[in-house]
């Protein structure tokens, strides 16, 4: 069972003269949390976008569950089992937290072209959605419109939506940003358990969380992976210390 779930080879992406992704290759294996770290502007979000399908790579391959998904759009990749959260949260703002998750439940069931049964009384949507909100600790805000949630609550909601998709892999882009120390700690515990449901590519700035969670860390600088290895290997890597950790250590 060590075939990678997600396999990225020699990915390239330029914005005009700027190489945002410069020959990136990485694997995500079952049960793994693979952390992606690097300074601001290194191209982490751009990489997540290309994997999720919201940006098209210039070249290179992305294989997911053994299938080349480079030609699929975002929705098709999500249906295959890639669930993501956004660095800048992206929700249906007018819908309540619960309806946002219910949307994911109906998407998972593949039942969005039904025109009569009313969702507000549909237990087969409400109950699983509510269960996901409970898991992330957001049940008490179920009926609040997404637009009225705090920054941290929106993050939790994004994760509840990703959970509801029962995906084969998670792509999380800085899920802890702006959560505060207490929230980060809780989310770290939560993600630690989540790895048993599906492996995770985790972009994160919070180094305590990364060192606690990651099975593998890749360091991205100017669009290139300058080092990739276990937590200890990355901590010891002189180039990483100079290019990235130096400023923090």
């Amino acid at each position, binding site marked *: 069972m060590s075939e990678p779930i997600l396999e990225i080879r020699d990915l390239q992406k330029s914005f005009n003269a700027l190489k945002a992704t410069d020959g990136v290759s990485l694997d995500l294996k079952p049960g793994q949390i693979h952390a992606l770290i690097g300074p601001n502007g290194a191209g982490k979000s751009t990489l997540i976008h290309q994997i*999720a*399908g*919201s940006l098209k790579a210039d070249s290179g391959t992305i294989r997911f569950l053994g299938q080349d998904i480079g030609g699929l*759009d*975002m*929705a*098709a990749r*999500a*249906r295959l089992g890639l*669930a*993501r959260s*956004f660095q800048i949260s*992206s*929700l*249906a*703002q*007018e*819908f*309540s937290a*619960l*309806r*946002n998750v*219910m*949307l*994911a439940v*109906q*998407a*998972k069931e593949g*039942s*969005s*072209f*039904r*025109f*009569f*049964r*009313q*969702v*507000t009384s*549909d237990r087969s*949507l409400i109950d699983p959605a509510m269960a996901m909100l409970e898991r992330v600790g957001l049940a008490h805000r179920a*009926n609040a*419109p997404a637009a009225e949630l705090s920054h941290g609550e929106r993050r939790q909601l994004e994760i509840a*939506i990703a959970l509801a*998709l029962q995906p084969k892999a998670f792509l999380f882009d800085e899920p802890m940003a702006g959560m505060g120390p207490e929230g980060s700690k809780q989310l770290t515990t939560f993600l630690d358990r989540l790895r048993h449901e599906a492996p995770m590519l985790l972009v994160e700035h919070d180094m305590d969380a990364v060192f606690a969670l990651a099975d593998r860390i890749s360091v991205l600088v100017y669009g290139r992976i300058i080092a990739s290895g276990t937590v200890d290997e990355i901590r010891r890597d002189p180039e990483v210390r100079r290019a990235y950790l130096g400023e923090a250590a």
Partner: protein
Amino acid sequence: MTRETAINLLLAALLLALPLIAAGMGEPFYVTLATRVVVLALAAVGLNLALGLGGLLSFGHAAFFGLGGYAAGILATHAFNAEPLFAGIPGTTSMPLIWLVAIAVAGLVALPIGAISLRTTGVYFIMITLAFAQMIYYFAISWPAYGGEDGLSIYVRNSFPGLNTAQPLPYFLICFVVLMAALLAFRLIEGSRFGSALQAARQNGVRLAAVGIPPFKVRLVAFVLSAMITGLAGALYADLNRFVGPSMLSWHMSGELMVLIILGGKGRLFGPVAGAMIFVCLEYVLGGITERWQFFLGLILLGIVLFARGGFLGLLSGKPRHV
């Protein structure tokens, strides 16, 4: 019952009661005026599905309105002249059949128009839908077989089993029931899984795609359904006026349908009804005083866009509540 529901019921009751009273007092003109309200409201209910729920600013819905109208006019003309349409298929004067054809034609034409237009967004979407509608408009003008610029007259209003449609009141009732059925369908769709997806597509298409629902497909289905309802309204409008002409296809008509929705309240169930009531009242009352009544309509629209985004219903019943 929410405040908005109460207002909706009141509007429906008013819209039904006024023509009944007018008919009782021997004033058929007002029955016909009320029928105009109902049919325009129905056309706008169609647009409201795309524009209100889906956020699709179609500036080409006159195309579907006019196609529905021409379906009625052409079928009736062939039946009247006892000439087959093509391949031996006869025309018809049966409203239910005509409606089916109008709905089918509008839907079939909306499919490619939507499939192309929905690849764009914003101003481009507005312009492409407008361009398609104008193409159909000029086609109708330059096609002499069905009246060209002069349009087509329907000499005898088409028939409905068991009712005398030549009388204003039965025809009003037919249209009223169709409108209520369309409103019920709108409400059901709005609250369904599809409605959730459609509203999510309006609020945030990326979010919808990220959970695996293709926004394009959702919008396309909504666009086609929307066109079908507006096409049905076109058939009723042709029978109301006993006439169909290119003006039903013109961009003025598309604009008028948008205006109705903005007046009444975009995305609200009864927005098109309130909008059509206000519009036809203004047209009748102000239009009787001055030919420049549209100037005042413009002022009212300006006021609504600046101060009351929810339209008339928004003013009366506050923000809609999503749960």
